[in-house]
Each structure stands twice: as structure tokens, then as C-alpha cells.
């Protein structure tokens, strides 16, 4: 997600100045995504450049509130209507790490799996504790953010279990080309024909 759409969504509630936006952003993400005020102002100036927000006159205290424009509302509506593409997400470092562990001599892959599983389980316990502590009706948005993190962590543990099972059955090839290089070679030959 972009900070940009987060700020637009907050401004849709009403006009706000930078510090208010930062506080509201952190509140709605349960402080899991800390923003510094510099990021807020940089984003606001880009939104202003693109015509999605407009600055209002400064208050007596020297604070300049912003409001969302019609173009900003349209952009926000489009964001809500469009599913988030999986390819826009950062690459999965853990998957790459395990793939490399498997092909790097001397690495104990099962130990890598278990170390990660313990760490992820620990994070899952902490998330669950936060959930246990937030059962007021007004905590719902925060609980849903927590649930998202809970399900992601759970998926990671399940995937690690799956990796471990696959490792138990895995018999590394004694010699010869790997399936990947074989596949690449084959498609290369096909391409040459």
C-alpha cells in the first residue's frame, strides 16, 4: 500500500494538517507502520502537485491544513476498487533464502527452517497477545489489521512445515545437471530448432 492513498483516505474524513495526519495514520495501522513527519509532508506536496489535495490558509498557530480534491476522491475510489497485485509486493526474502540454503554447500537447511519457524511463531504469539488485549468494539479496525498479520505469519509457518516435509523426502542429486539447468537447456535447444 502507499502512504499516498492512506493520506487521501484520512483526508476524506475531513481537512487535517501534517501532524494530525501522521497521528491518524499511525492510529489506523495500530502503530505498526510508523511515519515520520518528513514523509507526510513529502507525500502531501506530491499529492498537491498532482492536484489530488489542496492546501488551505494557515491557522493562527501556523498550521496549514489540507483538503482532498474531486480528483483525489476519484483516485481514492479507484484504489479501493482495484485489487492489490501480488507482483507489486516486495520479493519474498525468506523463500529466496531457503532456495539458496538448499543449493549452498554446508548449510543446514532444516536448522534454517526451524530457526525461522521459532521466530515466526514468536511473532504470532505477540500478535495474538495484542488481539487478546483489544476486544472492545471500537478496536475492530485494529483487530483486523492484527488478523491480517496473524494469517500471514500462520501461512509462513505452514509453508515452513511444508518445506520441512519436502526436505525429509528430498534426495539431492549425486551429480549431473540440476532440474533447473536441464529445463533451461531443453528450452534453449527448443528455441534453437
Amino acid at each position: 500500500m502507499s502512504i499516498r492513498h492512506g493520506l487521501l483516505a484520512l483526508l476524506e474524513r475531513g481537512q487535517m494538517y501534517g501532524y494530525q495526519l501522521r497521528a491518524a495514520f499511525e492510529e489506523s495501522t495500530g502503530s505498526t507502520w510508523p511515519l515520520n513527519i518528513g514523509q507526510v509532508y513529502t507525500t502531501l506536496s506530491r499529492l498537491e502537485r498532482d492536484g489530488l489535495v489542496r492546501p488551505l490558509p494557515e491557522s493562527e498557530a501556523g498550521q496549514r491544513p489540507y483538503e482532498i480534491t474531486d480528483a483525489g476522491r476519484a483516485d481514492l475510489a479507484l484504489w479501493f476498487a482495484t485489487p492489490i497485485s501480488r507482483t507489486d509486493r516486495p520479493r519474498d526474502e525468506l523463500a529466496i533464502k531457503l532456495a539458496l540454503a538448499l543449493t549452498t554447500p554446508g548449510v543446514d537447511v532444516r536448522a534454517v527452517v526451524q530457526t525461522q519457524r521459532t521466530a515466526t511463531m514468536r511473532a504470532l504469539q505477540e500478535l495474538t497477545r495484542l488481539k487478546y488485549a483489544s476486544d472492545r468494539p471500537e478496536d475492530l479496525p485494529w483487530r483486523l489489521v492484527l488478523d491480517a498479520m496473524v494469517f500471514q505469519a500462520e501461512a509462513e509457518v505452514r509453508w515452513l512445515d511444508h518445506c520441512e516435509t519436502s526436505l525429509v523426502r528430498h534426495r539431492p542429486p549425486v551429480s549431473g545437471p540440476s532440474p533447473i539447468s536441464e529445463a533451461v537447456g531443453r528450452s534453449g535447444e527448443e528455441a534453437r530448432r
Partner: protein
Amino acid sequence: MSTVSGPVPATPDHGAPPPADVDASGLPGSPADAVLDLRDVHRTHGTGPAAVHALRGVSLVVRPGELVAVMGPSGSGKSTLLTLAGGLDSPTAGEVRVEGQPLHALDRRGLARLRRRRIGYIFQNLNLIGGLTAVENVALPLELDGTGVRRARRLALAALTEVGLSELGDRFPDQLSGGQQQRVAIARALVGERRLVLADEPTGALDSQTGEAVLRLLRRRIDAGAAGVLVTHEARHAAWADRVVFLRDGVTVDSTAPLVGVETLLAGSGR
């Protein structure tokens, strides 16, 4: 309490890690406040080449207010661990103590009494008796133990109230939803003065919301001073525990450290 961290040996043949808890005095004997104390417990089924080593030296201490989750794949020994902890089976070697009492020193009657009075079981298969109402199901272990019918009923109603079913005590199991039946089973496990709650996949086939409600109940009872062991293969459920122990091939391969605070999580969530 030992914290296993860093890479762990990957072969299943390495020796068990040192006991998760060692008595502070270093003397043999239960940690003074342990509700459950498993000491280097082994369980082998069969003999000779066909022998199956379900547990191969597992140690575990659970204190009041502590919920320990045991995770592992099928065949890792987690259900065996639970049946030994509950005195439903005996170890081939090692010792099991409940509230300081070594189970092997009890005769059959003594063991049965301990199981009825101090240990609550929650199984995936609920084992509710169809011909008895909810309140009768919950009162049954008390009555078997000699508690008068009226007192048993009063305690059963209190336990049903604790799980939010005070209105449905007179219904039969088949008149209750799956989630309600599971809550009756939990009330039965918690009724009276039980100090040790043993749960084997207690959320079974329940949907995620109902399953979570069941775990909240269990957590609340533990927070009130009971001790619990939760066997599960679901990480999301194990996460309700204070500590998670990983079993593989009958040995513990790792465990999470007890929780301290949430700061680490919030600091590291930008991943």
C-alpha cells in the same frame, strides 16, 4: 527456563536438549510450583525391531498461569505426551508429576481420583454423553467423585456460565451447535477445582471465530491460575500459549521463549 535460540541440530537423532526447566535449587524434586512436571519421559510401543519410540526423553514443566502449546507433525509424539501428562498412559522410562505427586506412586484408585478432581481434558472428539443435558454432562465427573447431586449441579451451572452457556444448561448435545457443544466440553474440563487443563486440538472443526472464542476461554482460565497444555498443529492456535514447544520424532527440537512484551514486534513490523 532455558531458551533455545540459533540454529538447532537438524538430524532427528541428536540427544534431547536439556530439560526446559530445572529446579532452581538444583536438587532432584519438582520445581515447587510446578503443576505438571515431565522428567526425561520415554514411551515405547512394542518391543524388538518393531518397537515404536513415540517419546525419547522429553522434559517439560508447566506452572500455574502458564499455557504451553506443543506443536509437531503427525507421529511426532505430541498426543502421547498429553496422554502421559493426564495419567491415561504410563511412560516406559522417566517420571510424570502432577502438583508434585509422582503418578507412578499412585494406585489405580488414587490415579482415578486425581484425574477426576485435578485434571481437565478437552478432546477434538468431544465425548459428550447424548442422553444427558449440558449441565448433567458437566456435573458428571463431580458426581462420579462423590460430590452431592445438588452441589455438583450448582458447580456445573457456574462452569457453564463461565463459558457463556448459562441459558442452555437443560439442552441435550444434539440441540446445541458445534461451538456450543465444544463450550460444554470445556465447562466439563474446567468444572470444580481442576488445576491442569489438557487440550488436544480443541478447536477441531470449528470455524475460525468460534475456535478463537474457545481459545479465549481457555486462556482466561489459565490466566486465573490453572496450568495448561495445548496440543495442536495450527500455528494460529498455538500462538495463544505463553510458550510453544516443537516436537519432532519424539524429542523437543526447539521452543519459543516466554513472552516479555510487544515492543520487539512493533519495532520489527516494517518487513
